[in-house]
């Protein structure tokens, strides 16, 4: 059931409003909330960012360490994306082993980042086959008011663009304290971002608030980029929840996705230093 804690009255009111193209906060169905990006959530992180989108707030930090490469990618650095839905951020989140949503969020961000190749992992080799940099991205919602994956994707990109590779001391150990001027190698022409379409009744919408999200019966998360600055490219996608999506729904998403991406990238660029 998607409507945990949501009354039938709210569900039916929202379904009716959406079918008329209306939302409580006056937005259009395919209109996103504005967002802000701040940096330096922690000066111990190699890069970090805080995104506020409406009342949703997510912090993302990047840490780097020296590790050994995976056997199937000896010529590449490693990427790890984790995260947790801390009980701090919502009365709905509980402590204990991760529930599905806490698994899905970092996995979808991982696929978006990995498949877009925004991080140039080949430039993160220290000694081929032996020592490589591991990039660890950690995502924590601070306040959940819907669209966490979309907000997390903005935070992830903002944090990566801030990230510096730490210095190594004379023994080859990581020195997290001294200031580094070496930026994490990124494909700056390829910036991936995620957008989730939700469905309630026959209506599609983006960037729901918590209440809207709980009322919805279906969703699809899309991760896409302006690949090499050339064309829109989808890198990841996952349909969620129990309602099926029709061909028409998916075609409509394909129509709107490039514009959502372009608008968000434009807004994000204002916050990039």
């Amino acid at each position, binding site marked *: 059931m998607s409507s945990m804690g949501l009354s039938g009255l709210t569900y039916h009111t929202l379904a009716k409003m959406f079918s008329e193209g209306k939302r409580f906060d006056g937005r259009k169905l395919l209109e996103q909330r504005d967002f802000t990006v701040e940096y330096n959530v922690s000066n111990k992180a190699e890069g970090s960012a805080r995104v506020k989108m409406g009342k949703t707030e997510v912090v993302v930090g990047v840490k780097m360490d020296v590790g050994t490469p995976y056997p199937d990618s000896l010529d590449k650095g490693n990427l790890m994306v984790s995260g947790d839905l801390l009980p701090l951020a919502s009365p709905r989140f509980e402590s204990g082993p991760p529930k*599905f949503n806490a698994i899905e969020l970092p996995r979808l961000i991982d696929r978006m980042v990995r498949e877009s190749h925004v991080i140039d992992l080949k430039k993160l080799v220290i000694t081929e086959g032996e020592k490589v940099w591991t990039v660890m991205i950690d995502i924590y919602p601070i306040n959940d008011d819907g669209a966490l994956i979309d907000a997390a994707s903005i935070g992830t990109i903002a944090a990566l663009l801030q990230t510096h590779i730490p210095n190594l001391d004379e023994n080859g150990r990581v020195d997290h304290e001294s200031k580094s001027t070496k930026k994490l190698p990124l494909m700056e022409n390829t910036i991936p971002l995620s957008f989730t379409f939700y469905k309630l009744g026959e209506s599609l919408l983006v960037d729901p608030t918590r209440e809207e999200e709980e009322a919805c019966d279906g969703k699809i998360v899309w991760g896409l980029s302006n690949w090499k600055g050339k064309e829109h490219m*989808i890198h990841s996608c*996952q*349909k969620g929840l129990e309602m099926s*999506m029709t*061909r028409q729904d*998916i075609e409509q998403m394909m129509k709107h*996705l490039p514009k959502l991406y372009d608008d968000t990238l434009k807004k994000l660029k204002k916050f990039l230093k």
Partner: protein
Amino acid sequence: MTFKRPDGRKSDEMRPITAKVGIIPNADGSAMFTFGKTVAIAAVYGPRMLHPQHMQDPKGAILRVNYDLLSFSVSDRKKPGPSRRSQEISKVTEWSLSPALDLKDFPNTVVDVQIYILQADASTRVAGINAASMALAQAGIPMKNLICSVSIGKMDKELVVDVDKDEEDFEDGEGATDIPIAKLANTDEYTLLQLDGKIQPHLIPQALALADKACAKIYEVQKKALKNVMGDEDK
């Protein structure tokens, strides 16, 4: 240069598919489905009493799906027990099957679907969904129709049907994109859509159209396998 499939298949050609229903006598429904060398089996138990009690839903049965690889189904032995990957696939499989089911007549119960991969050559989750759908039908769970599932690939710029492991590892040009899709048979309702790789938005409708053609063939194979076992029971 256009992409040539390693095993010589045409772009819209699946590997040989086979289906068998009624492979696990203890289960209320069971089935096997194969795409070439990929072998998936599924068992359905239920509707049966659901414990713990607080999970019970008076409005109907809940569907609970577990998908996993057997440890020896892949080249590097898979550590037994759930991983984040298998938990995610279990959940999306549950979502891919549930739109076909009508569980309101079975309050407070659970329908358990267990899916295991015996031999993996990519496209395991979609093989598992095809097996599970037949197993649910054999178990007599009320269904709108069967769920049919296939993976669509994009190799460099070429769309192909039913991705195998050689193709999954393809790296040239725009590389390999894997798009597992499931749909309710004979409708345009999609119940599973995942994607990993690089694909332009305008190609998504083409991928769906390719999946439609393949799913129509899978549907016939599923129905035939179900009819076979129904025939046995009449004798």
